[in-house]
């Protein structure tokens, strides 16, 4: 009601103000006429009487203005008038409007595009009721080294401890873990992504099934399927509830179909099946996979986040962890919005904050640019402004009008910016820049763009408005708007210096990151990923013991080796570049300095692995067929791990300890990249012989001869696996080079954005220099003309222009260089192999900026040199 009522009141006000205007006119006219009549009666000549009466009455418009002010609520009428005026002004000066709106569009577009990404990656809530009450639980752990890390995956026993102790703050604490299931249907065994969940999973999320009913706490014999799977695999058959499906050789009845669009708690890892964890624990084999759980809870009604946070922290400290080598320091709650949790969220957040910061710099440059343009135009509008003031417009009124014009510009630019952002998101999607991240702009993005636009309007509009509306009526009217005045000149110089400073900042940062990216890319993969196909099989669900498992894998290798086009075959516990968690490792030298390395990637491989993926050995030897069960345990480490555990010493021959075992290092391999999300230094990495340490889940690494089609080999592998055991599913099969191309993704993304923004920034500031200089020359052309006419040589005229520009440039560049050094110092941990002060980068950024400034000033300076005194002075 209030909104509609308010609208009606305002409409009435507008109508009544029209009535009031009419009344005012009539009253004033009456007054003047009576005054004339009076004077005529007194014997004055009618024409003279009218003149006297008008003088006596005074400025009609001024009186009206005072009364309009007195009437109150006039802002709406004023505002509409201002908008109308602004539209007229914008339409009149189309070139200016287009240029300014385009510059704003670039700034707003860049920032909005990045925000679209931030929104998709960090902010978008889960599509469930009241998602803001959901929190993920993250433990903070201290490894054996004094390094802390976040643990989002917790053992099941710890989940139970948390669940039982937090009933007072959570309406429910649920646990889930994404796993791959082998789904057997219609004679085909395929791998599907599923989740093992606690019984209260759906209850905590408050999701309701599209069909059937979700399982509850006491149920262990049930499976829920996703809506997509229901449609694709079961033809949207309404009778699917009650049907039995085979998962990992276990028969489970379908009890429900999830609602459309629900893909689990992580949009990045969409899930098609939900199985109660109790079922998995009962079924042999799934137990160990189920042991690491991801926890999330829904706050009870009225419970503040801080209280729940404090409680989980207290519980974390009380319940002893079951890994001896790490210590739980505490726990905290974390938003469930976006795609990442724990350390990854922090890392990605920082990365995106940096990109957003760079975009904001572009926007600032754009604002400074448009502010400079407006301030220059303000000078040519001094006459108009002076006239307005002379007939009674107050300064506040003028500022409001000028700001309305800015707001209109910002709005046009902002709309353009949204289009640019959308186009950017579209092309990013087309280029598969962000993989499965859904970067479609939503309402939040639009709101952001709108807020940004309003801020922008004030940012670029306020200073010029203050400047233009400065009261100097007489001076402006007298000199015919010729002189710019030194103060507004200074203002424009500040805008130019600011742009240059921001641009050089962007350039330096872009340079640093591109440089660092190149260095990081040069830390080559450390192996040859081209022409390698991977495929993973897990024997756990089928309940194989070690002997049967080893037999399976050697038969598998033999079968695949026989496929046409296969050069060599190897087994490793994980696919290279797949994400895997690491363990602590320490050296075992007694009496010496004890050293630890946490988060070391550990992979069990067979003897053919190093040669198959072409990972070079830099010291010692690879695994041989003598490294078997009875022989002494051995390990191979990479260069980084060797350096960190035994600095300055030979690693080969030393012993390492991990997971309660001691091994002798027999070889060192070249550093490489093992996880495509890694940032910065190469991680520690260790290899153990499969023959000594069995794992039931292994990944085939198959090197193909050139011109062999990976798809054929994948088909061949599936065939071999099916012939060995039809209930074993082949997971994640495909070429290894695909994830390898996504290696260094964060750095690549960062360099890409920074380079793009750096270029846009330099372009904008070049435009700023050009515009300001052109304007100066145009304004001073009369002065130049006089000086030339009086005999001043052309170059003295030019040097007076150039001197000032150069001074502004030097100041701007200086500030920018200092600021960029500060920014680089903050961001140093994202840099790899590049110092904070990189002389090459600084030098090239300065040179680029100088070149752009020179090019931008070329045309105006030439114009200044060609000033023809006759033309200029005659124009007066």
């Amino acid at each position: 009601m209030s909104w509609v009522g308010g609208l009606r009141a305002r409409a009435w006000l507008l109508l009544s103000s029209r009535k009031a205007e009419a009344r005012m006119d009539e009253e004033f006219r009456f007054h003047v006429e009576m005054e004339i009549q009076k004077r005529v009666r007194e014997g004055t000549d009618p024409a003279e009487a009218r003149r006297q009466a008008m003088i006596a009455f005074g400025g009609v418009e001024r009186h009206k203005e005072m009364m309009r002010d007195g009437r109150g609520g006039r802002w709406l009428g004023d505002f509409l008038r201002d908008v109308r005026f602004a539209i007229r002004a914008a339409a009149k000066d189309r070139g200016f409007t287009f240029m300014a709106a385009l510059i704003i569009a670039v700034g707003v577009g860049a920032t909005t595009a990045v925000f679209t990404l931030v929104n998709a990656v960090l902010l978008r809530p889960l599509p469930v009721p009241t998602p803001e009450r959901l929190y993920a639980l993250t433990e903070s752990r201290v490894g054996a080294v004094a390094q802390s890390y976040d643990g989002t995956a917790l053992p099941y026993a710890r989940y139970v401890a948390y669940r039982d102790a937090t009933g007072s703050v959570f309406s429910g604490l649920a646990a889930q873990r994404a796993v791959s299931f082998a789904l057997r249907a219609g004679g085909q065994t395929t791998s599907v992504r599923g989740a093992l969940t606690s019984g209260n999973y759906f209850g905590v999320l408050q999701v309701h099934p599209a069909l059937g009913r979700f399982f509850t706490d006491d149920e262990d014999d049930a499976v829920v399927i996703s809506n997509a799977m229901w449609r694709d695999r079961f033809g949207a058959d309404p009778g699917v509830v009650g049907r039995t499906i085979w998962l990992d050789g276990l028969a489970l009845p379908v009890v429900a179909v999830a609602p459309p669009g629900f893909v689990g708690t992580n949009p990045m890892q969409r899930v098609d099946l939900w199985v109660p964890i109790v079922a998995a624990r009962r079924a042999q084999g799934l137990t160990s996979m189920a042991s690491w759980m991801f926890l999330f809870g829904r706050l009870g009604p009225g419970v503040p986040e801080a209280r729940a946070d404090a409680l989980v922290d207290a519980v974390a400290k009380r319940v002893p962890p079951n890994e001896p080598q790490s210590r739980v320091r505490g726990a905290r709650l974390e938003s469930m919005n976006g795609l990442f949790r724990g350390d990854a969220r922090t890392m990605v957040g920082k990365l995106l904050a940096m990109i957003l910061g760079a975009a904001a710099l572009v926007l600032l440059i754009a604002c400074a640019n448009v502010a400079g343009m407006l301030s220059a135009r303000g000078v040519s509008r001094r006459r108009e402004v002076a006239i307005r003031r002379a007939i009674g417009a107050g300064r506040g009124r003028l500022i409001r009008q000028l700001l309305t014009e800015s707001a209109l510009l910002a709005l046009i630019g902002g709309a353009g910016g949204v289009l640019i952002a959308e186009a950017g998101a579209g092309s990013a999607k087309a280029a598969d820049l962000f993989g499965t991240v859904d970067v479609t702009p939503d309402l939040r993005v639009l709101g952001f763009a709108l807020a940004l636009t309003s801020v922008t309007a004030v940012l670029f509009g306020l200073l010029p408005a203050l400047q233009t509306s400065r009261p100097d009526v007489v001076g402006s009217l007298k000199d015919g708007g010729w002189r710019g005045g030194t103060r507004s000149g200074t203002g424009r110089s500040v805008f130019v210096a600011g742009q240059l400073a921001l641009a050089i900042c962007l350039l330096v940062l872009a340079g640093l990151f591109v440089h660092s990216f190149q260095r990081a890319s040069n830390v080559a993969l450390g192996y040859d990923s081209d022409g390698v196909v991977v495929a993973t099989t897990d024997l756990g669900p089928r309940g194989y013991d070690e002997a049967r498992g080893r037999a399976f894998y050697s038969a598998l290798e033999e079968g695949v080796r026989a496929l046409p086009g296969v050069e060599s075959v190897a087994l490793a516990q994980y696919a290279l570049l797949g994400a895997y968690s690491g363990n602590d490792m320490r050296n075992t030298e007694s009496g010496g300095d004890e050293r630890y390395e946490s988060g070391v990637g550990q992979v069990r491989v067979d003897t053919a692995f190093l040669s198959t993926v072409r990972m070079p050995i830099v010291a010692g030897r690879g695994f041989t067929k003598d490294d078997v069960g009875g022989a002494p345990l051995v390990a191979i480490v990479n260069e980084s791990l060797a350096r960190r555990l035994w600095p300055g010493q030979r690693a080969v021959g030393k012993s390492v300890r991990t997971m309660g075992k001691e091994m002798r290092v027999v070889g060192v391999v070249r550093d490489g990249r093992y996880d495509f999300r890694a940032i910065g230094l190469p991680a520690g990495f260790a290899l153990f012989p499969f023959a000594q340490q069995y794992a039931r889940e292994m990944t085939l690494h198959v090197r193909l001869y050139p011109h062999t089609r990976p798809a054929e080999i994948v088909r061949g592998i599936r065939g071999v696996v099916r012939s060995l055991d039809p209930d074993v599913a082949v997971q994640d099969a495909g070429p290894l080079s695909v994830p390898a191309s996504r290696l260094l993704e964060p750095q690549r993304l960062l360099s890409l954005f920074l380079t793009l923004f750096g270029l846009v920034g330099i372009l904008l500031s070049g435009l700023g220099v050009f515009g300001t200089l052109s304007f100066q020359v145009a304004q001073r052309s009369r002065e130049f003309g006089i000086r030339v006419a009086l005999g001043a040589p052309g170059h003295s005229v030019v040097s007076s222009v150039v001197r000032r520009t150069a001074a502004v440039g030097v100041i701007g560049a200086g500030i920018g260089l200092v600021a960029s050094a500060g920014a680089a110092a903050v961001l140093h941990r994202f840099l790899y192999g590049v110092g904070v002060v990189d002389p090459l980068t600084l030098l090239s950024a300065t040179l680029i900026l100088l070149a752009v400034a020179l090019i931008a000033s070329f045309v105006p300076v030439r114009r200044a040199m060609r000033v023809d005194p006759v033309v200029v002075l005659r124009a007066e």
Partner: protein
Amino acid sequence: MSPQTQADALRGSIDLLVLKTLSLEPMHGWGISQRIQQLSSDVLEVNQGSLYPALQRLEKAGLITSRWDTTENNRRARYYSLTASGRRALGEEIESWRRFATALEAVLSTP
């Protein structure tokens, strides 16, 4: 007294003068200004720039009302008249003005 200072002195008391004038009979704007000039023997000359805003202000405060009417020459004009609360306000205003004038006089007549 220069016209400028006269106008300043008037500004504070314009409300009072308007109310007083309207207490005699309803009147249009021009008539009010003529009446004040006439009653003050041409000493006080009301500027339209302060008269009309004052009328607007007083009307908004509910001390006077206005309506369209015709003059004796059959011309349409806006006539202002005092309301009951305007009449009360006038009494108070006169009272406070007298107090003020007496006080001022006392100060000025000190030898």
